[in-house]
Each structure stands twice: as structure tokens, then as C-alpha cells.
């Protein structure tokens, strides 16, 4: 296993990229001490090609004062960032990968639902909690759902939270909520900081119901004045991987586009875009649906990478879908992404100055059909599970990959020359939490895509954080329903416009698929 050998070499030689910051203070984000070290980075992997990436991304795990209570461990939450940089976490759960048990078990444990609004200062690690169970059921239940969709409109400061899968307020069953909830971000942050009463918090929120909002595992955006609820599913009842009678599951297979009656949450104009392709390219949930830039035009768009499952098979989508507006999304079968088909942090950077303008997407771990870095122990476990015919073809990975598209329509994919520190199988079911300073400072487009020409080539730029997510012990569970937990790690992410090496994705290993005993939904 070449990757394991090179890993050992790498770990000794290139530790400057990933650091656990032992010397972080309450006021300073941990990062590289000296940018010159980055320039002289040693490339340990012989498959790596020097200079193929026009930038370097640096991930620094944060450690906080022991006097501060540890951050909660959460995944599948949604988040928004305040002007001052605090991160507000909503929903999600503290349970690792859900279990796959048959009735009457519950695979999404009620007590593992996150019932707090968590306001985090990622610099200090300090955080505040507000228990949403103090709110009325109309708010408390959807606010502690998992896999909601959130959009923070920076122009109005309104945070929109749509749908999500969670327990009904009476605890009787699970549903996909048909709710949309809004509040002003700054007002909510101030209220939590001021230890406001539940009545005050409640008064900040507006909630409405419409079955068209009943989506989980999709994403929610505003593009050119219209709202987009992209893909996802409606799941009613208890999650069952292997069939049953106590649930219904319907993928939306739609891009739902709408406007609101001004000043309300009532839908005004509405249209759903479907796709008649027999491949069902919209049959996606829990993938990476991100704000993006079309490198051919420089226009803002929405892009869907990955997502599961193709109808009737245990297969993820490997080709992207581009949404440029209400008109027909572009399904581009010429793009073939090997890594990170499940939701994970994605950093999007656009280089408009290149002769062939290119948009780069960096995927941080998660679950993918291909892998590169595995430790010997991880790979032994992988082999064991595969031999037991339990390999579903989608292991947890420690890889960081780049999937890029250029204006001429070509794609390339690379693997970062080092995995997540410690080869941790991290990143699943969380998003990249981008710094708002990038947009306000002109270093990013209004939708958050980073403008590479605006990034310094001599000093690092903090571009955001990665917090929490599912962490797996092994790529595939040695014993069903075990081996995952939720992380509370925080990584500060820096960017510097210094060329970096990367490994062509052609060196990646396809996860051996054995569907004999697999029927995961």
C-alpha cells in the first residue's frame, strides 16, 4: 500500500502544514509562525506534483484554555457567523453516524439531538448556550432538528432555517419539518450574549409552514433575488436502512425556486425544476451543494457535488450539477469526482486572473468513493470489512482533495499531499464556516467564493473554521453500528497564494464495492 508508506514519510517531513496549536491564546488564532516555512515545504509523496495548485491551504487545530468548558461535540448542524466572528450553531446532533437498526429501535436518538443554540467564539473557545426547549414547540422542535438548510442573507442580516429531520415536539415520531424560521443574526447574538429570556428569543423569530419547505439534506440559497431549495429529501417516520413500514422517504429531485410576499414568509412565486434524464441526476441528498462561480462567465451560481443515492443502487453521484438561475440546471457528465460524495467542508476559490480562469473546490475529508491516505490499522480494518462483504463502497476518508473546473470546461482533481492530521477520519456532515471578513474585505464574492487574486502571496489569511463533524475510528465499521463519534475539534483555516504540490487523483484507490449484503438508504 503505497499510500501508507508515503504517509509515514510525510508525517515526519511535512508537519508544518497541520499543527495542533498548543500555544494559542484567547485573542490569537493559532496558525503558522512563519510563512517562509510554507514556501519551503517538503513534498514527501513521490506522486505529488509540485506547483499544480496556485495556493496553499493550512489547517490548524485549535486548543483552548482548560479553564473553559469544552465545546459540545456536534455534527449535522447549521451555522451562521456574526459580524464579530462568533459562530451560531443550530440543530444537529451529538450522536455519531446513525445506526441501522430495524424497528422498534430508534436510529436517531432523541437525547442526542442538539437542543441548544450554541454561540461560539472560535478564537477563545468560549461559548454560550441557549436551550431551545424553553421556546414554544413550534420553534423548539425544528430548531433541534438535524440536517436543516440555512441561508444567512448578509444584506438583510436575516438567517433562514428551512426544514430538517427531527423529533416532533411531543416525541411521538420523527418528521421532516415543513417550517421556515427567520431571525436577525446580530439581534440573536446580542440576545444570547445578554442572557435574554425565552420570550425575548421567541420574539426575535418568525416561523411559517409550507410543505414545500419539508426538506432535509438539501441546501438553501438566495441567488439573484430568488430563493433556491436544492435537492434533499422528505423523510417521515423512523430512519430504516433496510426497509420497514414505519417511514416514508421521498427525494425531492427538484430545485425549488421561489420568492416571498414582501415582509412575510409566505411563498409568492414558486416553480420546481425537475430533470427527466433516466439517470435521475437530481436524486441527491447529503452531498455538497455550495455557492460557486462559473469560471466561463464569472457569474455566481450554485453547484452540487456528490450526494446520495442513485435510485436503486448504493451509488453516489460523481458528476456536478450547475445551477445558474431558474433555467435548466446544467448536468455535466464530463466531470467525474472521486472524493467526498458526502457533505464535508468545502472551500471554494476562484482564480479569475489565470489565462484559463479556474474555480477550485477543496474538500476536507468526509465520505467518498475513493481514498488515498489510510493508516495501516485503518487499512487492515478496511480489508476486514471488505472481506466480510460489508463494504458499501463509501468509507470515511482522511483525504483532502481539490476538484477544479476551468473556463474551457475541463476538470482536474488532486489530493492534498498530506491527510488530515493524525489521519483522522473527520469532516463528515459539517460545512466550512467562512470568515465574513472575506466578503466585507473584498476578498470574496458576495456568495463567499474567495477571490484568489485578492489573497496575499506573502502572508496568511484566515478564511474560516471547521468545527465538529462525525469522526470515525476506521474507514468502515469493524462491527456494524459502532466506530463513530462526534468531534468537537476546531480547525482554523488559512490561505496563502503560494503554489502547492498535489497528487493527481488518478493515484487514488477505488473503494471495493461489495453489495451482497448492503442496502443502505
Amino acid at each position, binding site marked *: 500500500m503505497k499510500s501508507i508508506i508515503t504517509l509515514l514519510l510525510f508525517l515526519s517531513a511535512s508537519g508544518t502544514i497541520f499543527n495542533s496549536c498548543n500555544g494559542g491564546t484567547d485573542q490569537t488564532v493559532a496558525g503558522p509562525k512563519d510563512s517562509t516555512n510554507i514556501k519551503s515545504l517538503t513534498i514527501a509523496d513521490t506522486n505529488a506534483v509540485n506547483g499544480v495548485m496556485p495556493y496553499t491551504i493550512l489547517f490548524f487545530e485549535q486548543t483552548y484554555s482548560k479553564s473553559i468548558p469544552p465545546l459540545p461535540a456536534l455534527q449535522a448542524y447549521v451555522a451562521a457567523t456574526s459580524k464579530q466572528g462568533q459562530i451560531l450553531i443550530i440543530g444537529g446532533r451529538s450522536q455519531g453516524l446513525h445506526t441501522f437498526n430495524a424497528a422498534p429501535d430508534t436510529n436517531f436518538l432523541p437525547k442526542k439531538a442538539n437542543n441548544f443554540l450554541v454561540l461560539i467564539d472560535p478564537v477563545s473557545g468560549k461559548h454560550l448556550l441557549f436551550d431551545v426547549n424553553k421556546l414554544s414547540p413550534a420553534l423548539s422542535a425544528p430548531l433541534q432538528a438535524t440536517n436543516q438548510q440555512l441561508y444567512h442573507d448578509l444584506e438583510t442580516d436575516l438567517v433562514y432555517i428551512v426544514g430538517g429531520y427531527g423529533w416532533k415536539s411531543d416525541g411521538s415520531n420523527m418528521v421532516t419539518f415543513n417550517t421556515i424560521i427567520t431571525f436577525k443574526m446580530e439581534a440573536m447574538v446580542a440576545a444570547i450574549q445578554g442572557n435574554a429570556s425565552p420570550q425575548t428569543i421567541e420574539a426575535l423569530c418568525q416561523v411559517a409552514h409550507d410543505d414545500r419547505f419539508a426538506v432535509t439534506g438539501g441546501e438553501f440559497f438566495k441567488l439573484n433575488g430568488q430563493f433556491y431549495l436544492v435537492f434533499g429529501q422528505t423523510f417521515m417516520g423512523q430512519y430504516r436502512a433496510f426497509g420497514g413500514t414505519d417511514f416514508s422517504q421521498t427525494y425531492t429531485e427538484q430545485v425549488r425556486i421561489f420568492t416571498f410576499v414582501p415582509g412575510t414568509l409566505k411563498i409568492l*412565486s414558486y416553480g420546481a425544476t425537475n430533470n427527466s434524464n433516466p439517470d435521475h441526476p437530481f436524486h441527491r441528498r447529503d452531498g455538497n451543494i455550495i455557492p460557486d462561480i462559473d469560471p466561463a462567465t464569472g457569474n455566481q451560481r450554485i453547484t452540487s457535488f456528490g450526494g446520495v443515492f442513485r435510485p436503486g443502487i448504493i451509488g453516489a453521484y460523481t458528476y456536478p450539477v450547475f445551477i445558474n438561475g*431558474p433555467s435548466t440546471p446544467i448536468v455535466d457528465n464530463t466531470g467525474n469526482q472521486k472524493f467526498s460524495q458526502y457533505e464535508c467542508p468545502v472551500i471554494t476559490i476562484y482564480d479569475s486572473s489565470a489565462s484559463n480562469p479556474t474555480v477550485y473546490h477543496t474538500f476536507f475529508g468526509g465520505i467518498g468513493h475513493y481514498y488515498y491516505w489510510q493508516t495501516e490499522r485503518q487499512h487492515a480494518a478496511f480489508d476486514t470489512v471488505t472481506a466480510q462483504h460489508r463494504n458499501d463502497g463509501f468509507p470515511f476518508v482522511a483525504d483532502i482533495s481539490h476538484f477544479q473546473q476551468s473556463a474551457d470546461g475541463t476538470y482536474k482533481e488532486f489530493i492534498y499531499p498530506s491527510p488530515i492530521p493524525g489521519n483522522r477520519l473527520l469532516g463528515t456532515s459539517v460545512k466550512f464556516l467562512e470568515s465574513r471578513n472575506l466578503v466585507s474585505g473584498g476578498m470574496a464574492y458576495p456568495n463567499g467564493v474567495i477571490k484568489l487574486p485578492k489573497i496575499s502571496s506573502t502572508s496568511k489569511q484566515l478564511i474560516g473554521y471547521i468545527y465538529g463533524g462525525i469522526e470515525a475510528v476506521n474507514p468502515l465499521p469493524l462491527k456494524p453500528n459502532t466506530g463513530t463519534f462526534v468531534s468537537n475539534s476546531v480547525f482554523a483555516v488559512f490561505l496563502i497564494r503560494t503554489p502547492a504540490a498535489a497528487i493527481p487523483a488518478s493515484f487514488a484507490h477505488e473503494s471495493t464495492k461489495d453489495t451482497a449484503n448492503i442496502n443502505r438508504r
Partner: protein
Amino acid sequence: MSYLDIPRIHFGGRFFTDPSTVNNDPAHYDPSVTNPSPWQTPLGQHRFEFVNCRIMSVMGPNGFAPDDPLVGTPITTVVTTVTQPPGAGTAAPAAPNPATISPAKIVDLDVYQQGIPAIYGLNITLNAGSTAVTGLADPPTLNQFWTNSVIPTRSWDPGDYDQDSFGGDMNACGWFQTVIRIPVANWPQTSSPILETLKANTQTVSGQYLVSLKFVLDGFQNTAEDAQPLTGRIVGTLGPVLANEPLYNPGQRTLLPRTFSSKDPWNFPSFNNCIFKIDTKRNKLVFDLANSICRQTAGGDPVDLGILNVFVTTPEPVVTQLGSIDYSAFAYANNAHIAELSITPAQIALLQQGKVNLAMSYTNIGMQAVLSEPAPNIQFAVEIRRMQLEGNVGTTGTTTVYISQNGVPLAGKQLNILVESTHGGMPGVTAGPNDPGNTPQADGAISATITPSNAKGIATVSVNVLKDPGSRTPELDGQLYFIIISDPDQPVQNWNQVAPPQDQMISCKVFSQYPLNQNPQWEEIETMMAPYMKLYPFMKTRINLTDPDSFKLFAINPIWFAYNEPPTNKGPLGIFSGAIPYYMSRDMNDPRLMPITRDLSYNKMMTLMYYCKNLQATPGVTTNPTT
């Protein structure tokens, strides 16, 4: 083509209508048929209303204006409130005009021509903040009607289609275009910049602002078992009326659908005519797709065509792709499926000499070019396509035809005109081959002429009554003619095999001659009213007009004060009382006019008025204003 200009106001929602269809079968006009089958909604009242319609978006010179206060507000067809004029202070609100409270009425021209229903008494109200602006629409007539606007999930086998007794309405689609007339005094300053711009840019005629209105209807659910019975989907557009443009037709270039065959596979979608405009001021190519693309389901989303690309072919020939347009479901809801494509001045030059087509990216559902501009670039359309004439010799009716070439008025063009007497089974006639239609007496009863077009591209059609056309049955007054306009420079069509294009034909109903009787007896009135009581059952539930006592009561009562009419508003023969003479003497575009079907000839109506007048003059009769 004002509604394709800016400022443009897009609205959408649902419509309600409940036409009784007892009168849709020619056999029901046989006096021997005394218990006609009910068809659909036998107690329907022919009402037509907007339901939960709102302004979805507005477009100004800078594109969509989502912050305009008009966005999201209701657009209504029944007026229940009256805006106080400026300076009215705290005076009690004025009562709304009764004519604006009554819903509009949708009415066929004739049982043999059910394809061009018109809507009478359509009052449109826009709301901007606390200000309402109301105007009355000229009666619009259905246009570009097609019944295969939904992808067939069964088959195109005629037997299957016919078995679906209500499928025809569910799968049908068509549009109405007209102008709304808004008295200048009724349009105060509003908080809506779009409304103010519209007011400043539209034509004013006879103290009224004209506003262009076009709307598309589809997905009508016409049985009680439907989820939303008697409603369908509506999207529409309002815009300015510009000088020298037709009022009831687009008057722009048209794309024709690809060839349709009943032998096509089920999943090959059909298409219908598509209007487009080159907006040289804004460098935009503007398409109206709302009635042009097949739906996936009745009243549902457009079929998936992949990318819909716009091409122009210049004479060399050189094909140039101009870009793609948005035909999404959202575009249908948000902007009434009006799609814009930015173009350059150089592309405008290409468009002015070339032919446009729209081609889908999919290759597996038929020919990719789904809508194409025909080789002859002369467009013409009749402004008023339904006509009713009295059968007296010398009666003349006129309308106009707007002729254009490449979207520009064409002067000096002489079109052909042809009068066809109709019969069942004839293309364009809404009755089967076993229905006889016109009688031999109809032949030669009318003539028609058309002038060459003037500098504004307008040709005038004159229809002249030459003799008494007679009637088809004792209960089906008059005869029906198709007056077909055609281009002599194009191949001659056999109109007995092919239906004329809907906008190039006038349907003309000519009543039989009827002697005015100033002293009618009850039997004559009863005979006159009997068909209405049979074919319009709802009316019979209100006033049985064949019951002499009921008729007499309502012929005399109430005094018209009950309808808020001032004493100066007397009716025919000076009548000022009686519900029957009141409702039968309203204006043609008053929604309250009876009979709703608007098919009572003048002399019959006046005979009825004399009967009422004589009853009121009977010694000892007094009227009760509260009856």
C-alpha cells in the same frame, strides 16, 4: 405588443369559472328535447373571477424591481371597495358601482363556435399600498387555444382521448389579450414606481388610460371531484399601450411549432405558437412562452427540454446561436413565462434579416428545433374575432386586421377574404358531423370585404347582411359564418380539411329577422324565454321566466332605485322599474346583462321591453321598490 414592453407587471394565481354547458350540444336546441342532459356544471352561472391572484414580479428599465410595493399585492376582478378621491376627507366610503361587484361572465358565441369564448364585465383592480386602481377590460376573446398542451400519459389514440370526458378542458390552454380602460380620475398617484411609470408611458384615450392585459389559462378542473373544482391556473401580464399597436393581438413576429403527428411517441411534447419581440431600445429579445410549451401535467410544469437555445438563421444561410432562455416552472409562475435574452446591436441586425428558432438540447424527444419562424414573414391577425349582427338587410359590421412584416406595420397589403357557411364537422366548428349547422337559407345572406392595409398596417373588414339568414332551429336563432382572411401570396388551403388559424378568422353570428311587436302577448314572450329556461337552469332557479306570474312580478318590480340608478338612467322606452327589463337592458360589457349568453336579437329584446312596459302601464299596477 405592449405587454412585452416595460414597465411590465406579472401576476399569477388561479381563476374560477362555472359556465353551464347544457347549451353546448346542438341537439339541445331542438324544441322536442325538453330534458337535455346536464353536461358539466348545469347550474353554473358563467362567472369568471381571479382567485388568490397576486402580483408576482414587476419589471422596469433596470430589470426586476422586487421592492416595488406592488409586488405581492392582490390583483382582483370583483370590486368590493372604492378608493376615496383626493380631498374626500372623512366622508363615508362610496358604495361600489354595482356593475363592478358582479363577477365577469364568460360566454360562447354560439353552440357551433365554442372556441372563442369572451369575458364580459372584467373589472381589474390593482392595489398599491392603500390605493386601488380599477379599470374595465374590453371583452377579451380566447386565442391560440390548443387541447394537447399536456404530455399524454395514455396515448394519442383517439379512442382513449375521447373516453376522457373532461380531459379536453384539463389539457387545454389558451390566452386572452385586451386593454383595461381606467378613467384618469380613478388613477391617483400611488406609491408604486412601476405603476407611476406605466401611467406615464401608456396611451390615454377619451379620458381613460389604456393598459395592455394578456393572460394564459390552463389546467381547468371542471368536475366536482377535482381537488380544486371549477378553477384553473392563470398567469398574466400588464403593460403599456403604445401608439399604433393592435389592442387585442400581439402584432409581433411569431414562431410556429414543429410538426405534430398523432403517430409520434407519447413522450414527444407538442408546442404552440410563440410570440417574440426585438426590443431595440433595451437590446433584448423577448419571448412569450406561456402558451407555447407542453406541460408535464395539467396546469403543471413545462416539460423538460434541457437547454432551450435561441438561433437566428440569416439568408446565406448562416446559423448563429444567440444564447439560451429560461423556460422554467419558476419563470412561468414568477414572470408569466416571458423570457428575455440580452442581445447586441450586431445581433439585432441579424434578427432583422434572419429567421429565429428555438431548439432544445435534448435529442431523444423529437426534432430539436421546436419553434421556428416561418418563411413568409408577413403576420396578420384579426382584432375582433367574434361578431354578432342583426339580420336586417343593410346591417354592417366592421373590424380590423393588423398586418406586419418583421414586426413592423405593412402598408398596401391586400389580403383575401372568404365567407364560409358553417356545418357540423367542419374544421373549426365545435360540433360533430351529425349536427347539421346552418340551413340552406344561410347561403348568400352575408358578404365580406377587406381593404388594403393603410400606413399603420391596418386593413378594414366589412361584413354586410344581404338577406334574412333565417334560423337553424326554432331555439337556435340565426346562422353562423366563418369569415376567413388569407394571404394571396401563400398556398391556398382547403378550409373544409384544415381549420383556419384562430387569429385569422372572424366568427360571425347573424340573427334571423324578427318583426318588432309593440303589443306582444304572453305566448310570444314565453316562446322567446323557453330556450333560456331549458339551457340555463340556474336562471330558472332565480326567476322562472316561463312562469307568467313570476315574469309579471319581476317585469314590474322593483323601481331601479334598488340598483342605485338615478332617475335619469332610464332604460328603453323610458322604463325605470322591473328586474327583468333592468338586467336585459344593461350594456353588452356589463357583467349583469341578461341573458348571459348575449344572444337575444335586438328586436326580440325590444319586443320583450314592450311587454314589460305594457305590463307596467296596466291600470292599478304599482311597483314595490323592495321586491
